Every structure is written in structure tokens, then in C-alpha cells.
């Protein structure tokens, strides 16, 4: 025992080296690939309405990702990231929370936000960085955020949200709020120092946070075996004194069950929890990446066969809650809605010049005001060079 207040440590008299293989972490799986349940599996708390909400979010995100990736290829948007293959991980876990639990995500969790109710127009306004974007067009596409939906605004630096989740959860505990934070990150981000800081602090402070790692096998081109030598991310949780569970990330029922249990421990006992969801990034890392340079098609095909959406669909059909007609109808409805929303968002003007200067501080200090005035004067002089803002400078 390393706690100096305890003196009953186990002593040996020959060197005994501990090896991570002695720590065997099982993977929770409830649903088989064919949509049937494992005989001894216990179902999560789920009814038809929840099941269909989850599944419809799957279909929406698949349609959105497909359409937006194509739009990026056409040059209509600057950047995009899909979450194909990982829908069960983020949507299934968010479905286990209450709407007022805070979500702190990395960037590949748009499904969680969609599940919370972020509207199609809101997605589009952010992606097209127009003046209706809640983020005022300041961040790259997919950096969503919504105070109303308790979804903390995404930022690009990896892992920074992990200790923030610990701090946020500490605040919830201090104020006796019956809520938790879920913090998503990839297995690559777990190599950042912030991961270590966050889990260690959460273990010490005993705060209501669920650390949810999407272990999808790759960080851009880097395969997981070049990321860590231990038993994934889950084995680390134990070292920090954090309750830990590994789950099949392509099995939405298992993810839901794991997160429901985790939430209970986090909220009722202030026990931080680490969940490692084993999944696979079926798409490219981003619209700026081509995975054919670092992995082979047969590996992708193996995982395409383990599709989380298909697996859940088969279960839904077996429940009598879904059929192919509904499937086709929903898919088509999403595609149509997305096309319509995209055309609408493209036509909405860019943010105003004022939006370039506001929110750096609560109110702009003198030097920002000076720079704003100087830029306005400059744009008035050369309006054709700055068409996004010049047309309405004098109407603001």
C-alpha cells in the first residue's frame, strides 16, 4: 500500500515484477453481430421510444456525414470530420444521461449533439460559419457548442477538455447537483499530459465524471500499437483509482448499459468512471486525410461488417419496432432535409465585422476598439477587397 496512513502492506522477499497481462480487462458485449442477444446478457434500461430515437440519430448522422464530406470535396465547405463506425459509442453513451448532464467532447461526437436536439439548421450554420452560427463563425467546421443543450464548445487542442471535465464535475459536486459530466476523447488524445492530469485529479477528488474513450484504432495515421504498449486505455484507469470498464463500442446496447451504470456511480457515489469503447474509425481522419496511405482495405472491410448501425437495426426489426420501409423513408427524409438546410445556410451572410472583435473580453478594451475603428475605415476605403463585410458596414 502506498498510502502512508496504512501499514499493512504485502511484503515479499524475492523480486516480483507485475505485468499488465496479469490485469485482464474483459469487454462488455450484449448484442451479437446478427442482432440477437447473448443468452446471459442483461439489457440496458431501454424502451421503444428511446431505441428509435437512438436509431434515428444514427441515420441522421450517417446522412449528414455523407453529404458534408461530399460538400467538402465540392469545395462548398472548408473542412469536415465524419464519425462513421463510431455512432454507437457517442450516441449510445449520451442516451444514458439526462439532458442537463454536461458533455465535453473532442470533435468526433456530433451524434451526441444531434441526440441532444441540436437542429439541422444549427449544424449547417456552424459548418458554413454564417452569422447565425452560435459560435459566430469563428471556429472551423464541426467545432460545435451549445449552452442550451449542455454541450461544451469543441476546441482543436487535443485532451484539453479532459481536466476541464474534472473541474466542471468538481463544481457539480460542490453544489450538490445531481448531475455528471461525460468527457469524450480518442485513444490518441489519451497520450496527452492532460489525460494523466485529469484522471489523477478526478481519482483524488472523487468527482462525478465519466471519461469516455473512443478507441478506434488510429490517431490520424498512427495505429494504436504505436500509441501505447499497455492494455489499451482501460488499464490506466485502475492505476488512478478509477472504476473502469471496457465495452464493445459497436454494440449500442452494451454502451448504453455501461454508461447507465457509470452514471449511477458518478452521480450517486461521486465515483469517477473510465469507459473504453473499442471501435473502428471507418472513415478518413478528416477531409484532409486519405487512409489508403497507412492501412489496407481488408482491415476496413472486416470492420465494415461489424457495423454498429446494422447490428442495432437487426435487433430493432426483431423487436418489431422497425422495418425496411421505415428505413428507406427515414433515410430519404434526412437526405432531403439536409440538402434543403444546406442550401439555406449557404445563403446566410457571414458574421458582421463586430463579431471579429466582440467576446475576446466581456467588453472590448481600448486597443480592440481602436483596431475595430481602423479596420472599418480601411474596409470603407477598399470595399471590393472585403466583400463579406463591406456591403453592410454602414447599416450595422
Amino acid at each position, binding site marked *: 500500500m502506498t498510502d502512508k496512513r496504512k501499514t499493512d502492506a504485502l511484503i515479499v522477499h524475492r523480486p516480483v515484477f507485475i505485468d499488465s497481462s496479469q490485469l485482464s480487462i474483459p469487454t462488455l458485449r450484449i448484442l451479437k453481430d446478427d442482432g440477437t442477444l447473448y443468452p446471459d446478457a442483461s439489457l440496458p434500461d431501454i424502451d421503444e421510444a428511446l431505441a428509435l430515437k437512438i436509431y434515428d440519430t444514427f441515420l441522421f448522422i450517417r446522412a449528414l456525414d455523407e453529404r458534408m464530406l461530399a460538400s467538402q470535396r465540392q469545395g462548398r465547405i472548408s473542412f469536415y470530420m465524419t464519425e462513421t463506425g463510431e455512432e454507437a459509442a457517442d450516441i449510445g453513451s449520451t442516451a444514458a444521461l439526462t439532458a442537463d448532464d*454536461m458533455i465535453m467532447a473532442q470533435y468526433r461526437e456530433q451524434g451526441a449533439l444531434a441526440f441532444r436536439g441540436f437542429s439541422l439548421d444549427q449544424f449547417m450554420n456552424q459548418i458554413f460559419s454564417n452569422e447565425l452560427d452560435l459560435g459566430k463563425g469563428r471556429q472551423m467546421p464541426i467545432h460545435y457548442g451549445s449552452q442550451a443543450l449542455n454541450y*461544451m*464548445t469543441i476546441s482543436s487542442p487535443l485532451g*484539453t477538455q479532459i*481536466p476541464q*471535465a*474534472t473541474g466542471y464535475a468538481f463544481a457539480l459536486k460542490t453544489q450538490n447537483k445531481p448531475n455528471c459530466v461525460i468527457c469524450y476523447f480518442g485513444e490518441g488524445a489519451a497520450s496527452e499530459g*492532460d489525460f494523466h492530469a*485529469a484522471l489523477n485529479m478526478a481519482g483524488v477528488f472523487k468527482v462525478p465524471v465519466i471519461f469516455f474513450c473512443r478507441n478506434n484504432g488510429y490517431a490520424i495515421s498512427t495505429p494504436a500499437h504505436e500509441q501505447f504498449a499497455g492494455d489499451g486505455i482501460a488499464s490506466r484507469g485502475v492505476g488512478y483509482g478509477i472504476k473502469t470498464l471496457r465495452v464493445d463500442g459497436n454494440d449500442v446496447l452494451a454502451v448504453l448499459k455501461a454508461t447507465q451504470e457509470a452514471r449511477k456511480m458518478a452521480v450517486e457515489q461521486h465515483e469517477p468512471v473510465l469507459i473504453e469503447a473499442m471501435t473502428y474509425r471507418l472513415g478518413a481522419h478528416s477531409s484532409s486525410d486519405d487512409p489508403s496511405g497507412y492501412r489496407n482495405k481488408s482491415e476496413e472491410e472486416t470492420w465494415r461488417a461489424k457495423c454498429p448501425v446494422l447490428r442495432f437495426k437487426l435487433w430493432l426489426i426483431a423487436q418489431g419496432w422497425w422495418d425496411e420501409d421505415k428505413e428507406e423513408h427515414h433515410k430519404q427524409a434526412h437526405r432531403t432535409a439536409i440538402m434543403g438546410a444546406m442550401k439555406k445556410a449557404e445563403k446566410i451572410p457571414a458574421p458582421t465585422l463586430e463579431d471579429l472583435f466582440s467576446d475576446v473580453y466581456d467588453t472590448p478594451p481600448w*486597443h480592440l476598439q481602436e483596431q475595430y475603428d481602423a479596420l472599418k475605415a480601411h474596409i470603407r476605403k477598399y470595399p471590393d477587397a472585403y466583400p463579406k463585410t463591406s456591403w453592410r458596414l454602414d447599416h450595422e
Partner: protein
Amino acid sequence: MSKINLLQAINQALDSTLAQNDLAICFGEDVGHFGGVFRATSHLQEKYGKQRCFNTPLTEQGIIGFANGAAAQGMTAIAEIQFADYIFPAFDQIVNESAKFRYRSGNEFNVGSLTIRTPYGGGINGAHYHSQSPEAYFTHTPGLKIVVPRNPYQAKGLLLASIRDPNPIIFFEPKKLYRASVGEVPDEDYELPLGKGEVLREGTDITLVAWGAQVEAIEKAADMAAEQGISCELIDLRTLLPWDRDLLALSVKKTGRLIINHEAPKTSGFGAEIAAAIQEECFLYLESPIIRVTGLDTPFPLALEKEYMPDALKTFEAIKASMTF
């Protein structure tokens, strides 16, 4: 009014914050029961409990990441970094996260209730890692405010204002003055305005500007100059971001000469920003080049600390050079 030192003034500001604001928390390395390595948080855990004033694991990036999260939830987060020299592991959390939180979210979220307190500066045989003045790394970061007090009265008033300001703030405390600087401080709560400099002494021949512990150096230099009949106007900037350019420009327009004194290295120090801005503002009024009396472009040394420091004597020489230009 009581006669207290700078540390006691900080402790009073924290005490009164915790007493008035249930959402306020103080945390950092050794901040809890022990009361901090400098004792700035003495007795706060006893009075307010372990949920309000507590130790963190030894991780600066963790402390500020945690602080960002707590502040984003609405807590008044007062984080301590044990020495400013050790703030760099948290540089990413401060520059990429704290500073940009409000802006990047379109004001959906903010960490305005965050204050980072950290002891800075030389004068205690601290060598490389217990002496640095890293303010210029942060004045280059939109979204932050940077505050540096020079005495107990300022320390209390500026810290209370910083804690209540709706923007993330780094509050640099001159550790050399923690016990050395003693002065009258009101017992009750008060605030000093952020973004405002202070004219300490009016003069007509030359303006001297400094902040924190270096104000002492320009005061002494001004005394030496006065014996030679040179009248110095002294300005304490107090806040470096956003800084009080108008106050300084007004002074330089009157005196026509400016000397900037800071302890941090010269190249890209905050003095460079002041010099450039005053040159833009006061070009037709300047009668001699603006002179920077600063630390050297070396790591902060141990044995030759006295040689390194931009002391009164070096400032006095600069005054004479400016006057005879």
C-alpha cells in the same frame, strides 16, 4: 486600517472572497491545510473547509485545466501556480483554452470567473526557476488580463478586482516583496480599477514607468536624479493587459522622455510594446530615444543576480543618458 505585509493583504482578499462568495474556491499545490509555501492561503482551509480551499496533485496543466472547467461551470476559481517559473506546463490551457473560451464559443461559455495567482520575479536567490517574470508571454495573448501589484494596498484592491472581473486574469505577485513590503491597508473590502496606471510622483523632465517590484528601482533612481535637479514623473502601470497607454502618453507628451524598467529579459519584453506604442502616439513630442532598462537576454542567474537586475543605478544612468541626448 492595519499595517500588514503584501502576503497578508493577499490572504485578506482571499478570505473576504471566500466569506462573501459561496462559489469561490482556492486551490493549488500545498495551498490547503499548510496554507501555501508562502502562506498566502493560511487558515483558509480551517475557516472554509476542504471543499473551498484545497491541495491539488502536483500538475500545473491539471490545475489550470481543472480551473477552466470549474470556472466554465460558474465557480469563482482562484488557482495558484507555486512559482511563475512553473506556469509553462499550463501554457496550453491558459493560451489556447482560458484566453479563447468566450471568443471561440460565441459567448456560449466563458471562464471569466478564473483568476490565476502566481509569485514572480527575482531577488530571493532563486536562479533560473524561482525568479522569472513571464508576463510578456501572456500579454501576447488576446483574452487574458495581466495584473501586477507593487504593495499591500494594491495587492488587496487589485486582487479583489481581478477575482470579480468577468475575464480570466493572471495575477503576478512580486515574491521579493511578500514580507518586505508593509503598508496601511483598509480592513474592509475595496477594489482598485483594472486597466488603469497610477502616477506615483509628478515630474516635468522625464517619465519613468515600471510595475510590481521594479517600481522601487525607478523610485530610487528618481531620488538620485532629483539631487541633480532632474524632475522625474513616475508611473506604475499596475495592469499590463489591457494597459493604460493614455496615461503614459499624456505624461510623455509633457516630459518628452521615457524610460521603461522591467525585470524580464529585454528582447520581446513588454517594454518593447510600450516603446512602440508610445513612439506611435508621441512621435512629435519625443526629445530622446525611449530607453529600456531591463533584465538581460540570459536565463536568470544565481551568483550574478545583482549584475543581472535592472536596478536603480542602471536606471539613473539611463536617465542621464536620456537627458543629455
